[in-house]
């Protein structure tokens, strides 16, 4: 591993203050407006999207800032509850959480179960050791050793690429699936695997954390897909309000400000939508 302590000290961006938009606030369901706050389930282990601060309690990240800003437009306080992934979806389903937000990629299958409000777009980004010593080419990775976080869209992506290799009569890709991205990244740093692919922001963050000159990006991001905030399937009212709030911060520039601070401008989305067409 590199000496990750180096970038430890980089100041985390301040979330900008937003003003309440009374018109939008009126869209919020009465009970929530009355409470004045929403609870949001978050799996805080996916920097820079969402992760825990050094106090071990506060959620940080660009997702956190975006959602907090949007809710600010609605005059709502955001209560972030760090939890495990399974618990977020179940919690939203049972009303334990009003929203779920954790770098969730929007898919058709998922939208059958919950409402998803798109607000950010992330593509897939490959990276390898500096200089790409194994000469990994994302479009022809046959026979390489590739690390990936399991159960992500990238997981499905690399599986498909491997199958294509086999069909083309070439060697399959050796895929190693890890429970989390840092572990996958670690194996690229140590040379156990040749490259990895991840969400673009995550890949950038990995580069920062592993230190200067250890890793580098390969190629451009591709297959951009939106991230979505979850609400209960029947909570369309709240979903619409949140979507409108996102559009409001896109409008007034808070949105780009936040993306800029976190260095993820590449993920900018034109408009937020409830259950967008993919």
């Amino acid at each position, binding site marked *: 591993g590199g000496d990750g302590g180096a970038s430890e000290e980089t100041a985390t961006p301040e979330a900008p203050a937003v003003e309440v938009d009374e018109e939008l606030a009126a869209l919020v369901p009465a009970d929530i407006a009355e409470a004045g706050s929403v609870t949001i389930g978050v799996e805080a282990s996916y920097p820079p999207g969402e992760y825990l601060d050094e106090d071990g309690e506060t959620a940080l990240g660009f997702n956190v800032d975006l959602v907090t800003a949007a809710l600010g437009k609605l005059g709502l306080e955001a209560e972030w509850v760090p939890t495990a992934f399974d618990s977020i979806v179940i919690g939203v389903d049972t009303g334990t959480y009003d929203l779920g937000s954790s770098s969730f990629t929007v898919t058709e299958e*998922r939208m059958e179960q919950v409402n998803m409000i798109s607000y950010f777009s992330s593509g897939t980004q490959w990276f390898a050791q500096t200089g790409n010593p194994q000469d990994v080419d994302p479009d022809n990775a046959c026979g390489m050793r590739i690390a990936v976080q399991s159960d992500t869209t990238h997981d499905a992506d690399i599986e498909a690429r491997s199958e294509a290799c086999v069909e083309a009569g070439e060697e399959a890709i050796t895929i190693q699936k890890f*429970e989390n991205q840092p572990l996958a990244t*670690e194996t690229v740093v*140590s040379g156990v695997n040749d490259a990895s692919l991840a969400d673009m922001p995550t890949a950038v963050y990995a580069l920062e954390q592993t230190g200067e000159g250890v890793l580098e990006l390969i190629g451009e991001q591709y297959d951009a897909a939106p991230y979505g905030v979850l609400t209960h399937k029947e909570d369309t009212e709240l979903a619409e309000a949140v979507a409108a709030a996102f559009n409001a911060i896109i409008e007034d520039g808070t949105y780009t400000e936040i993306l800029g601070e976190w260095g993820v401008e590449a993920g900018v989305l034109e408009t937020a939508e409830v259950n967008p067409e993919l």
Partner: protein
Amino acid sequence: MSSPTEPVSGPGSPNPTPGRSTEPVTAVPVRYPERWVAAAVILVLAAMFVHMLFTNDAFNWPFMLEHMFSDPVVRGVWVTISATVLSMLIGIVLGIVLAVMRLSGNPVLMAVSWLYTWFFRGVPRLVLAVLFGNIAILYTTIAIGLPFDNYWMPWLGLEGDARFFEIDTRTLLSGYVAGLLALSLSEGAYMAEIIRAGLQSVDKGQTEAAQALGMGRGRIMRRITLPQAMRVVIPPTGNETIAMLKDTALLAYVPVTIELFYQLQAIGSRTYQIFPMLVAACLWYLTITSVLMVGQYFIERRFNPGQYGGIRGRIVGGAH
């Protein structure tokens, strides 16, 4: 009405006074209404629970049934079962060796056994799974040769190294084998404690009798002490097996992702039908647990015949 009024006739008091009280004792057993109330409450609660299971939408039974038997899940069941069985078998053998070492009286063996137990009870299985799965990060190659050659060879003025051959660790351990190793090594430490308790519960007269017959230490352990320790060893071993069944989910950290729990979770996170998939996991684990418990019942009966009729008491000794 009986009336045993015959006088007590001097010192030879036990005068037979037959012909009375011949009815068999068919007493009304003590009533425990509180138990029946408790049972009724439990039954009602259970009924409400089952009713909830079938009426609560969260369970989404049709979806669950559709995916519970899909190919990758069924394959996962077999991986989980095989990993459980194999790691328990290795763990038990290791546990026996460690327990015997611990009780051997030999300070070297005792220390080694203690250290092993300490270390592997202390380190979480998850960490072991990660470590064994990623051993390549720690050692990129494993070399057979003389140790610390990089220190003493230069010091002796020698060049090169004292390694006879090297293996690339990326290919040494397949994920499954690495995971199995992590689970077995950890289980060995736990089994060692259980087996130690079992061995200590066997009367030492048994060992002496076997020694007096000219049996060697190993044979006494195998043929006399261990079988008698089984009675005490089986129930906690059942616990360990059932816990291991669930711990195979840690294989995902190795990473071995063809395992049952991972597969169910994968479906859950793909479709956001998390809860039905958790219930599916429960049903699968309950099924396998039931099979294991039946197995435990028969093994217990095999090693503890007295308890189930047949042989009377546990205490060796004449009728008393």
